[in-house]
């Protein structure tokens, strides 16, 4: 029989659209989220952890009303996995979680490694956005009133102009055209686009922050806060 009552879940949280929406899907189906887990990579080219404004996850966790574990990693390819493993171990001990939720869409590198860590600890691994159509995801975010902005780009043909842009119906149409023309992933899966959730049904109020700088060159830009 189906169930959804006994699990306490921890969410791998970057503050972007995918991890926030994964929480929303789990909560809507009655799952208890016990904590958020954020890995702050000092390596901007990290294989696992990408977001350029991860400092804001602490504020977002307050707005959601959940405790958060934030850990730094140097971001070296396999070492950062060890750091993630240790952080999940800490979450299991501290919050008695017996499952992890991720916002993984298509990254087999991330999915495989997180599955292995969860398997090692004997806990569930949930990937509610796995293989999801990326345009469908963007449309759902708009429909569910997620206020999301672009805080980083890292692929042709994206540029500095996109930083700060809001995900709305116009943005989705633009991304669909870009998908046809340049074969990009419209939701930025793969690190082409990094996002930040400013507000959503999970938040008590809108996230308040100031952009200090927009740094980068060519097709690589990100905000600093």
């Amino acid at each position, binding site marked *: 029989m189906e169930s959804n009552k006994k699990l306490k879940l921890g969410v791998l949280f970057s503050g972007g659209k995918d991890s926030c929406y994964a929480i929303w899907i789990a909560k809507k189906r009655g799952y208890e989220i016990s904590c958020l887990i954020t890995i702050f990579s000092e390596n901007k080219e990290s294989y696992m952890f990408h977001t350029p404004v991860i400092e804001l996850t602490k504020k977002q966790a307050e707005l959601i009303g959940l405790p958060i574990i934030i850990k730094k990693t140097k971001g070296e390819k396999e070492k950062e996995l060890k750091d993630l493993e240790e952080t999940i171990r800490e979450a299991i001990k501290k919050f008695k979680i017996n499952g992890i939720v991720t916002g993984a869409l298509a990254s087999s590198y991330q999915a495989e490694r997180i599955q292995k860590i969860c398997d090692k600890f004997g806990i569930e691994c*949930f990937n509610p956005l796995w293989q999801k159509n990326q345009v469908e995801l963007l449309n759902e975010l708009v429909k569910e009133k997620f206020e999301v902005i672009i805080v980083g780009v890292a692929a042709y043909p994206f540029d500095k102009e996109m930083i700060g842009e809001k995900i709305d119906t116009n943005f989705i149409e633009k991304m669909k055209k870009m998908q046809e023309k340049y074969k990009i992933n419209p939701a930025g899966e793969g690190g082409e686009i990094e996002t930040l959730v400013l507000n959503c049904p999970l938040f008590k109020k809108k996230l308040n922050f100031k952009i200090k700088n927009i740094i980068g060159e060519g097709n690589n830009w990100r905000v600093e806060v």
Partner: protein
Amino acid sequence: MKKELLVINVCQEKLHYFEFVKPIEDILQKQGLFFFTKHYSKLNSVDLKKAEKVIICGTSLKDNNFLEKNNLKNFEWIRKFDKPILGICAGMQIIGKIFGGKIINKKEIGFFKENFVKDFFGLKGEQEVWHLHNNLIIFDKSWENYVSSSFQACKHKEKEIYCCLFHPEVRNKHLITNFSSI
């Protein structure tokens, strides 16, 4: 009665529907195919009569609830079902158990290369597949193995029952569309 493909959800946790069932529904929907989805515990004889083909989906590594004796009873209909069935991962293990196959522990997570010695819905020769399972099934002689190693893809010799241990909804999506068009 309109004939449709039946997608069977075997997940114990509702949240796993999004990972193991919805990607299969999306593939069918993209092809414009008619289907309906039921959890195995809620299947009835009308559903099975209405179904022109059946796909039994997979579930998570931690979820082995479907293999419990009481739950396997829900799949006894497979023995007499005379329309095509595709069992994916957990679906393959269920079919294996119903037909007396032996389950052995073998954990595989991630991409693996498998050698298809015979065309399996468009997969032939060496192919990369996505694995996420704890067990393998050893079938008896009434099954034909399409892969050179252990039973990763096979078919019943007299029935239109197909199984794959890997997840074609992640890599090799055309396997699902090819099965749907037989």
